[in-house]
Every structure is written in structure tokens, then in C-alpha cells.
């Protein structure tokens, strides 16, 4: 029981990170109609920015600002590429997947060549923090607390934005029917850019929390996380925000439980196997496609 509780706690803090990534990913899928496979890679890039800023200052606010700003800037900067892509191909998410896979490759290679000589980066030990609560096998570090509570706050803010504000309404309108939205006078391109910016904002925050949770990052991290984010999003039903919320969290918990209870290299295979069964039974995902 103690072990189970400990693993649940681990799973929840990891899951909240997956949720944030899935949300940002789904938002761009819904509003801009693209599969941004490189989104987790961008988040890892922002972790590198955090690390760079931390070498000059330990002002937390500055670090968060730098992370968020860099993620927004880069994410918005690549928007024109996808816009041009949509102009050439129509809104074909398959092509956007191909292009974003190339971008992911680019980002990984830039990190492994140019940043910290390709070595993993490590954040200050205080960042991860010692256990703030510990009893037997149950331990909760400051980093986990940041990830879990920061994650909850960010998700709450995201859903508030989406369901309680004017801009959120507009984002939902475009995701439901972009042609109708433009007919009633909603500026589509401006709002799409906004969705990239919001995903960037979420990504920047995720980067800071991820840094605190993991304590380090490496060029390969984007690929590790990327596959899981795409898998969670598809499992939920592409672009289904609430489904993504559930599946992201479930993925974190399932991963922790699998590592905690199942035999090593088979643990992920079993997790994948379960996913396979679900996908074969419900090809549209658990909660249905909304894109």
C-alpha cells in the first residue's frame, strides 16, 4: 500500500507535465490544424534557456520570464512556416507532421552540437530541492511539488482562458468551424498566431517545472517525451482537450506503475500493448476526435 501511494505520487507529478504538453499540442492541433511534433522539443530547448539564464542570475522570476519568452518567440516564429504549408497543401495535418518531425530533428541536432557540447545540462540542486515530506517510501520533493501544483494551476488557468474569456471563445470557435468563424468576422490568422503564443506560454512554464522535476535535460529528452505526448493525444482522440487531460494524467500514472511493478524492459512494452488494444478497439480514441 505504501509502495502504491508512493508510485501514485510519482505518477501524478509526471502526469501533470504530460498534461501540460498534451494541452499545448492539442491547442495548436485544434486551432491551427497542425501536428506540432516538435513541441516537446521546443520545451526542452526552453529548459536550455533556463539553464543558460541560471548561470548568470538566480532570480526565479527572470528565469521563468526568459523561459516563457523564448518558448513563445520560437513557437510564434515557426508559425509562418506552417501557414505557408497550409497555403500550399491545404490544411493537411499529415504534411505538418512530416515537417514538424524534421523540425524536431533539427532542434535535437542543434542541442547535441551547439549547447553545452552536447552534454546533458543539470540544474542547481536547490532547484530540485530535498524532500519536503518523507515517510518511509513516500517522499515528495520540492521539484515534484512545483510540477504538481504548478501544473494544476497552469491547467486551471488554461481552461479558464478557454471557457471564460472572449479570446478563449474565439479560439474554441475557430477550432469548431474556422470557415464560419471567418464569416462572422473573426480574424483567423491573428487567432492562430495567438494559439501558437498560448502554446508557447504553456511550454515555457512547463520547461521551468520540468527542470525542477527532473533536475537535468539532454538533447534526447524531446524525442522521449515527444512520442508519449503524441501517443496520449491520439489515445484520447486527437485534439480532444478534456480527453487529453485525462490521458496525460493516466499516462504519467501508468508509466510510474509499470516501472514500479512490471519487469524492466517489458514494462513499456506492456503499456504499449494496452494502448494497442485500445486503439484497435476504438480507432477514434477514447474520447473521440475533435479536430
Amino acid at each position: 500500500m505504501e509502495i502504491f501511494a508512493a508510485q501514485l505520487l510519482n505518477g501524478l507529478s509526471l502526469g501533470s507535465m504530460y498534461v501540460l504538453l498534451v494541452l499545448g499540442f492539442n491547442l495548436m492541433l485544434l486551432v491551427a490544424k497542425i501536428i506540432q511534433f516538435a513541441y516537446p522539443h521546443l520545451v526542452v530547448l526552453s529548459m536550455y534557456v533556463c539553464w543558460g539564464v541560471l548561470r548568470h542570475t538566480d532570480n526565479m522570476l527572470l528565469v521563468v520570464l526568459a523561459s516563457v519568452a523564448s518558448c513563445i518567440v520560437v513557437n510564434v516564429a515557426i508559425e509562418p512556416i506552417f501557414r505557408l504549408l497550409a497555403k500550399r497543401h491545404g490544411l493537411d495535418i499529415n504534411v505538418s507532421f512530416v515537417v514538424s518531425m524534421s523540425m524536431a530533428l533539427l532542434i535535437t541536432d542543434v542541442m547535441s552540437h551547439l549547447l553545452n557540447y552536447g552534454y546533458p545540462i543539470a540544474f542547481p540542486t536547490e532547484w530540485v530541492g530535498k524532500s519536503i515530506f518523507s515517510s518511509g517510501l513516500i517522499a515528495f520533493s520540492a521539484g515534484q511539488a512545483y510540477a504538481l501544483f504548478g501544473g494544476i494551476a497552469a491547467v486551471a488557468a488554461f481552461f479558464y482562458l478557454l471557457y471564460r474569456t472572449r479570446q478563449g471563445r474565439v479560439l474554441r470557435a475557430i477550432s469548431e468551424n474556422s470557415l464560419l468563424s471567418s464569416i462572422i468576422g473573426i480574424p483567423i490568422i491573428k487567432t492562430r498566431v495567438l494559439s501558437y503564443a498560448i502554446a508557447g506560454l504553456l511550454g515555457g512554464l512547463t520547461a521551468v517545472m520540468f527542470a525542477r522535476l527532473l533536475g537535468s535535460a539532454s538533447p534526447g529528452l524531446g524525442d522521449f517525451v515527444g512520442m508519449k505526448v503524441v501517443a496520449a493525444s491520439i489515445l484520447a482522440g486527437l485534439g480532444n482537450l478534456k480527453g487529453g487531460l485525462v490521458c496525460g494524467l493516466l499516462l504519467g500514472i501508468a508509466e510510474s506503475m509499470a516501472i514500479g511493478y512490471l519487469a524492466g524492459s517489458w514494462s513499456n512494452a506492456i503499456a504499449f500493448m494496452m494502448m494497442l488494444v485500445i486503439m484497435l478497439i476504438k480507432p477514434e480514441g477514447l474520447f473521440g476526435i475533435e479536430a
Partner: protein
Amino acid sequence: MKKSSMLKVEGVSVSYGPVRALENISIEVDRREIVALIGANGAGKTTLLKAILGVQKVQSGKVLFLGDDITNSSTDKVANMGLGLIPEGHLVFSTMTVLENLQLGAYHNPQDFNDNLENVFESFPVLRKRIHQTAGTLSGGEQQMLSIARTLMSKPELVMVDELSLGLAPKVVSEIFDILGDLNNKGYTILLAEQNAKKTLEFANRAYVMETGRVVLQGLTQELMSHPEVRRAYLGSNV
């Protein structure tokens, strides 16, 4: 050119790839008029409305609205200038509530939102009752009313209606035509694209008859109703 001309389409042509959808179309709508576009399915009515609004790219010709050239302008800009389209198939944002739909309609005109809302509810009392209901759960007629109401929230200078009666019961259609008549009395200018020629011709002041992307006849509705060709092709009369 008359001073009160609101919308002027001059020699517009549109192609979908190698297929020509509109051929050198010219129409005009004056202030406070009700103008109808009639023609069979595929005659190019919807394409024309889309071309006016900038949804569909125009290859040649000109679209003037309130004297400004809006040819191939971006749709949201045109909508912002006061051109409202009520699209075919009573389209609403079905996952959102009635209120949210109306709020979206007021995207460019948020300042006197409450007054506008009151006005709209006056015309469509049924929507007031359904204000927090999800739009997807409304009946077809109610969705059409919501679609109109949403357009009115932006206080458009010109209301364009595409296939108003499609998929609706005759009784509901009459009801909505009545409401449109009221709106016209209140000062709205209306451009109506319809397959249901009889009802439309009774309702409008002037009409253009379209066939395979061209305007084949035009004039006052009374005159058109007695035109033998129109009677044969659109009004189901053998005379």
C-alpha cells in the same frame, strides 16, 4: 451610380481550378432594399456570396461596398465593415451555448452588447429562453434563428442570407421570412439567395435570376413573376 448604392458587384468571375463558377456577374443592392438571387442548385449563388465576402478568391472584376473596393479583402475585415452573411444550412457553433454564439457574433461590436442583445431577443423571443442551452441541442428552426441573431449582433449594414429555407418546415420558413420583413422595416438591407423562388419573389423588391454562373434575368419582382420564362422554370407554372 445612385448615391444610396450599398453593394456593387462589377463583372466578377470566379474559377475553381479549370471550372468556371461565375462568369462576369454584375449586381447592385441599394440601401433598405430586399434583393433576391434566385436560381437552381449549382447556379453560383453561394459562390457569389462567398466572393463578396472574400471567402472565395475572385479572378477578375470588382466588389464595392459602401463605395470601398473590397475585392479579395480578408473576410474578417469585410465582416468588420458591416457585411453579415447568414450561411447555408443554419450553421451555429454547436458545442457552445446560445449566449456564447451571440457573443461571438458581437466580436467586432462589443460596446453596446446588452442593447443589441435586447433587440435580438425582441425579434427572437425563443432564444431568450434557451440562452444557456448548447446550440447543438436546438431545433433546426431555432438554429436558423440563432444564426440570424448572431449576425445581427454585429449590427451589419447589409445582411446576406444563403438558402434560408433549406431543410426547414414550411411553417418555420414563413415565420423566419416574417422576421426578416420586420428587420427590413427596422432599416436593414437584405440580400437573399434562395432556391425557393415563389416565396422569395413575393418577399423581395428586386431579383436576379442566375443560371450556370451567369445572371440571365433581372428586374423588379412583380415584373419577373409575370415573365413567362420565370414562371415556367421557377414557379412551376405551365403557362
